């Protein structure tokens, strides 16, 4: 009898088995969490975002035009700065990015105004940036990036596995309990606050804290050394956004660079053998965030 049936029919019937209604407990949990989950700021160029005061609207539009004109001049200038090696039309990294060329998702990503070949990949990253992948490093853009708020550059070591890499994430804060995946968000003011927060994690040692600069922004760079997990702290969930930090490099040392750009916390996680760190540093040194310089944006 079995041989007479279409396998696709059998398969579809099997796939349709199972629950189809979201449990009410989950529904309640979502609704209950809304009041304590802050919403992101609206995109500055989104329709309906301008205040209703005509003068303010005019000023906002004028500002937008000036910024756009400035950006256009900057981008079209033939001898740009260090990121000029990343022309927007055909960037050198396009070989890494082309397998995952900008998807139809671009209507959201257009808000990012990202001229880098990363456009269309992360949908929630708040700040456009460009980068350069160090030559011969073997880093590629992770085509299986599961996060909406990060860009992952990894070195493939096998099918669906990576032995080293650099991850650029936008972080909204820490967790009130860094041992719990369900802990609520903890506001952190700046890079110094992040360092102090890291020291509160029970199974984490913070080592080699240094002050550096990333694209002109003051940053803290440090190594997180993970102690063996305990019953009270089986894993480490440092970020309010996403899963455990050990997902990427197990409990091997992780090099963290944290800094603020335009009031957004940016965290760069480098993982891999010690010999990889200079490559990670070269990548970090190439980052350029496409926002006005801090001095210009400070009131």
């Amino acid at each position: 009898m079995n041989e007479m049936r279409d396998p696709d029919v059998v398969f579809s019937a099997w796939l349709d088995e199972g629950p189809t209604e979201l449990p009410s407990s989950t529904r309640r949990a979502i609704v209950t969490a809304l009041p304590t989950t802050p919403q992101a700021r609206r995109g500055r160029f989104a329709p309906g975002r301008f205040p209703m005061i005509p003068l303010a609207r005019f000023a906002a539009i004028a500002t937008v035009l000036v910024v756009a004109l400035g950006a256009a001049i900057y981008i079209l200038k033939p001898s740009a700065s260090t990121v000029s090696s990343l022309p927007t039309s055909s960037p050198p990294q396009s070989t890494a990015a082309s397998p995952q060329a900008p998807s139809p998702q671009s209507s959201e990503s257009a808000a990012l105004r990202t001229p880098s070949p990363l456009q269309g990949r992360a949908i929630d990253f708040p700040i456009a940036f460009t980068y350069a992948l160090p030559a011969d490093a073997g880093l590629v853009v992770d085509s299986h990036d599961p996060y909406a708020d990060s860009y992952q550059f990894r070195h493939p070591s096998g099918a669906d596995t990576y032995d080293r890499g650099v991850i650029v994430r936008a972080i909204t804060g820490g967790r009130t309990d860094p041992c719990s995946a369900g802990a609520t968000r903890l506001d952190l003011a700046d890079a110094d606050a992040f360092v102090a927060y890291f020291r509160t994690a029970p199974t984490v040692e913070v080592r080699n804290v240094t002050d550096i600069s990333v694209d002109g922004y003051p940053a803290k760079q440090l190594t997180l050394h993970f102690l063996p997990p305990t019953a009270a702290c089986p894993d480490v969930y440092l970020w309010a956004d996403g899963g455990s930090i050990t997902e990427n490099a197990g409990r091997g040392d992780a090099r963290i660079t944290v800094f603020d750009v335009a009031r957004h916390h940016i965290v760069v996680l480098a993982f891999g053998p010690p010999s990889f760190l200079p490559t990670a540093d070269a990548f970090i040194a190439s980052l350029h965030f496409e926002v006005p310089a801090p001095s210009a944006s400070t009131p």
Partner: protein
Amino acid sequence: VREGLVERASEGDEIAFGQLLDIDGDRCYAIAYRILRDAERAQDAVQQAFLLAWRELPRLRDASRFEVWLHRLVVNACYEEARRYRRWSANVRALPVDGPAGPDETVSVDERDALERAFQRLSPEHRTVVVLHHHAGVPLASIAEIAGVPLGTVKSRLHYATRILRDALAADRVDGRKVRPA
């Protein structure tokens, strides 16, 4: 109606967002469950996706794209859950199927077992394409949009996954003809 709710929710209207949850929650859960084959993890993924949607909704520029955007968040949350599952719970077996859409008589016990084992061997990316296409009936072009990959990748993933599942069924039918111990 949905676009109006999206607009209101993006301005902080929790009631409107709750109505969006009523509209889309079941479908998202059904998709997540079938990708993850685990009820609790599917609930976690849906919860993460909806809370991320709430947080990021003000940045969604086109309310008419909410459904695709939400599905993308759900799929991403499933990937994250699957990766966590792979790392920490490699030996946990999927929960048995239950709920209103119970076992279909079209599928024998052996076939169900064979499909389950074959499906578990697929990557989350392959499962996603299969579930969105065969269960949710999403067009391939939209799957590409949701999964954030080119259409060709969707097609190749679907072809590969379908072959694996067909092979599993075929092997089960061969085994089924063998004499088994009582």
